[in-house]
């Protein structure tokens, strides 16, 4: 159907007495996203845009896009955007927020950007407690460059640079950067969510909303990790990739709030997390 036909059909339904439950938000542009079919980036973009729309802060929001799959995020959001050097989005967001304290600033980064090359910027921005929101999309692989091993790649997981699976003795352990930064006093809200089912998407949206609301409180940094699939990098169909993520990613990266209102959540003991959720080795 052409665009005009779709609008006509929507109007027809409204005339028949239907009420609109859901439609794509106007904060996202009409540009077709370059992401692979089924990628969690698209869903995460949509959630961030919906939160900006619902809070009515479209003209006060500045986003910072990273290097990685989401490098062209500025094409898809109808808000002000700044492109950062690889991994330096938190540093750039710090400057934007300090120079314009009334704006809502968010960074949108992947695991190669935030947890690999940008580790220093990430940790120091979190430690300084900048009043920004960081959205971290973790898919356990370098998606854009062709599926190489990332710091977050699971033990035993095959990638282009670990064709026989990631080995601890050679490649080290997966980096749980979200737990790591939750121990820093500068962070106010740290959570990990996912976007593979409708229920998970609604929870992720509530978390992103909370992260943006926290900027008004000026108490510290809000960090939302979103577990995403990478069906191209993992060489699976989108539906199988979502299932694989539930089976393998989630035991290693448990979903839920880690730090709320500046306090670690009671049942999450960060120092013992490795024991509570031992790293599974894949076959």
């Amino acid at each position: 159907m052409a665009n005009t036909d779709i609008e006509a059909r929507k109007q027809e339904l409204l005339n028949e007495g239907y009420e609109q439950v859901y439609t794509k938000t106007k904060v996202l542009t009409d540009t077709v996203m370059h992401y692979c079919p089924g990628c969690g980036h698209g869903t995460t973009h949509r959630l961030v845009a919906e939160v900006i729309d619902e809070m009515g802060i479209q003209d006060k929001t500045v986003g910072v896009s990273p290097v990685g799959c989401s490098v062209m995020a500025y094409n898809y959001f109808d808000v002000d955007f700044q492109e950062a050097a690889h991994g330096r989005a938190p540093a750039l967001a710090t400057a934007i927020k300090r120079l314009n304290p009334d704006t809502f600033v968010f960074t949108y980064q992947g695991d190669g950007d935030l947890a690999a090359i940008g580790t220093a910027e990430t940790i120091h921005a979190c430690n300084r407690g900048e009043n920004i929101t960081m959205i971290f999309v973790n898919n356990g692989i370098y998606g854009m460059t062709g599926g190489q091993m990332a710091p977050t790649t699971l033990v035993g997981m095959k990638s282009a640079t670990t064709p026989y699976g990631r080995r601890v003795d050679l490649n080290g352990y997966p980096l749980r950067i979200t737990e790591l930064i939750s121990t820093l006093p500068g962070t106010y809200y740290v959570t990990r969510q996912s976007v593979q089912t409708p229920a998970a998407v609604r929870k992720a949206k509530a978390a992103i909303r909370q992260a943006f609301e926290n900027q008004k409180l000026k108490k510290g940094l809000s960090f939302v990790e979103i577990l995403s699939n990478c069906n191209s990098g993992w060489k699976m169909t989108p539906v199988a990739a979502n299932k694989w993520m539930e089976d393998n990613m989630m035991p290693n990266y448990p979903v839920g709030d880690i730090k709320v209102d500046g306090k670690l959540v009671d049942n999450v003991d960060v120092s013992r997390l490795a024991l509570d959720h031992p790293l599974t080795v894949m076959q």
Partner: protein
Amino acid sequence: MAFKGQIVIDTEHCKGCGVCVPVCPMKCIELSKEVNGKGYNFTHTVNDNCIGCASCAMVCPDGVISVYKKKI
């Protein structure tokens, strides 16, 4: 109280990932055998069971699904 739903799919922009198919509680979405201009098997409705729950729209990465419902 029951609801009757209708979904409008922007088939030209659908990438045919199929993520919406297993999440539909009423099993009214399937991937089409036809393809759109980009060669993707776009998603389409196959029956009138839709209740307007918007589960499909929630998981759609490209936001191509709009959901409408009314009381019956």
